């Protein structure tokens, strides 16, 4: 990657790391929440639904500020994590991943929930009568059939993480090499009088990464559809 300056490379790699970790963090709870909302009726369901969607409608700066208050070194959660595990999130790339994860969570849950709702419950019943417990039925029937939606949700969450700005800069600030992701680096350049050329280069990089992710997910989705045995027509 010699065509990138060290500054650009640092920001790009940090962005990719933060986004990948964010998606990895929210995937298990995202699947569980989506399944719960799609398949179960319980008291307080609309409250859970609302809480899940909250980061989508709140200004990201608010999310970042709440994270800072809760998860900062002196916050109730952050302080405890620091004392017990020695982990610090404030002013660290891990904090950036948390901020991205929170903001991207509703997008993942929405996409996965919709795709689980399209899976015929009769197929899950059939799996149960064939000896599969609820977990096996989920992992061998529901999840494979919902896979295209899970992939779409994960891509959406990944893209949202890459573009995360407000929550990140509020929670972990803008420290080159530590928390300065691509959008933050771009912002810094736009603030300096001779940053025009560098900002343009970062724009191009952002576009290339986003396009790459789209193309990769398209081809993955096509392969998934083939694996599902042209099942879409069969449903």
């Amino acid at each position, binding site marked *: 990657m010699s065509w990138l300056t060290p500054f650009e490379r640092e920001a790009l790699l940090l962005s990719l790391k933060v986004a990948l970790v964010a998606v990895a963090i929210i995937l298990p709870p995202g699947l569980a929440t989506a399944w719960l909302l799609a398949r179960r009726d319980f008291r307080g369901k609309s409250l859970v639904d609302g809480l899940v969607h909250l980061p989508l409608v709140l200004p990201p700066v608010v999310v970042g500020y709440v994270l800072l208050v809760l998860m900062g070194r002196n916050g109730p959660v952050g302080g405890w994590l620091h004392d017990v595990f020695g982990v610090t999130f404030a002013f660290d790339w891990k904090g950036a991943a948390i901020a991205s994860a929170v903001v991207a969570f509703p997008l993942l849950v929405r996409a996965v929930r919709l795709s689980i709702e399209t899976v015929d419950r009769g197929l899950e019943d059939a799996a149960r*009568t064939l000896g599969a417990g609820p977990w096996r039925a989920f992992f*061998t029937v529901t999840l494979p059939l919902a896979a295209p939606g899970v992939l779409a949700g994960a891509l959406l969450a990944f893209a949202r993480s890459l573009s995360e700005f407000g929550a990140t800069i509020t929670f972990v600030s803008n420290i080159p090499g530590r928390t300065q992701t691509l959008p933050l680096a771009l912002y810094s350049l736009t603030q300096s009088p001779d940053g025009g050329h560098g900002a343009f280069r970062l724009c191009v990089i952002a576009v290339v990464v986003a396009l790459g992710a789209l193309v990769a997910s398209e081809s993955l989705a096509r392969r998934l559809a083939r694996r*599902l*045995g042209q099942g879409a027509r069969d449903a």
Partner: protein
Amino acid sequence: MLELTMSLRRGAALVEADVRIPGGVTALFGRSGVGKSSLIHAVAGLLKPTRGRIVLRSDVLFDHAAGINLPPERRRLGVVFQDGRLFPHRSVRGNLRYGVRSETDAGASFDAVVSLLDLEPLLGRHPSSLSGGERQRVAIGRALMTAPRLLLMDEPLASLDAARKAEVLPYLGRLTREFDVPVLYVTHSVDEILDLADHLLVMDDGRVIADGEVEAIAATAAFQAAAGPRECGVAVSATVVGDEAGGVLTRLAFAGGELVVPHLTAPIGATARVRIQPQNVGLALTRPEGTSFRNILPAVVVDVAVRADGLVDVRLDCGVPLLASVTPLSRDELGLKPGLSLFAMIKTVSVRR
């Protein structure tokens, strides 16, 4: 074998049952929406009854009072759904293998099921490329692979057209003869009952209204009412006595005498079930001479009833129950009333199994 005492709510409707089901093939018959599927789903563990008990052999599957409700995966029952419900993301082989418990004890039964249902050429295919009949064969095979203690079939042929039905029906016949598994078979087709079932439950309005051997129940008014005027017929159990007319015909003996049917490739002494539909039975006050009817039986009128479509159902006793349908005109000319002795002329006898 299966003891079923339960009630459950489906929307505003109440479905109740209090029956003991023996081994062999039991047909659960009734019009659409009378609660047949609900009953099957309750036995399978997919619907929870509001009260009662479900016991298979000595194994309690559900007991409301004792708080027992085994989940479906622990009931060890095979279920064949009306719509097949094959997994679209798995090949036929993958579908068949889904419920197999362990590779070691499955080998023999996998091959046996595949050959019974002629699934070999389909193994590598995907469900979306199968015809409706092929899908149901795979669904039946998939349920059999689990070595079920009871096979529940919820109108497995109802979604198929007549040609596909005829393609799958013989497999069901073979299955019930070759696999020693009791079957509870939901259907609203009289043909399927007469071809497959030993025992018959008739449901109406959420209740089991008749319960017994197919031959006995098929002649009852409850079954005739549920089956509707076009479908109904009586079933007669008969024994092969010998050939007639140089092997063109076969003579059968039954409780009311003898019947001559088109040639059967069955040994002497074998039992057969024949179906006699009411529109194929004519009546005469004296024994007719010079007629093409080969089957003429003395009979006594039991009951005369006018149907919704204006024709008259005449219930007869000729050693076994028999039904004839005639016009009101014939009823008046012959003076049909209970107790009258006459002769039943049977035009067509179809042998069902």
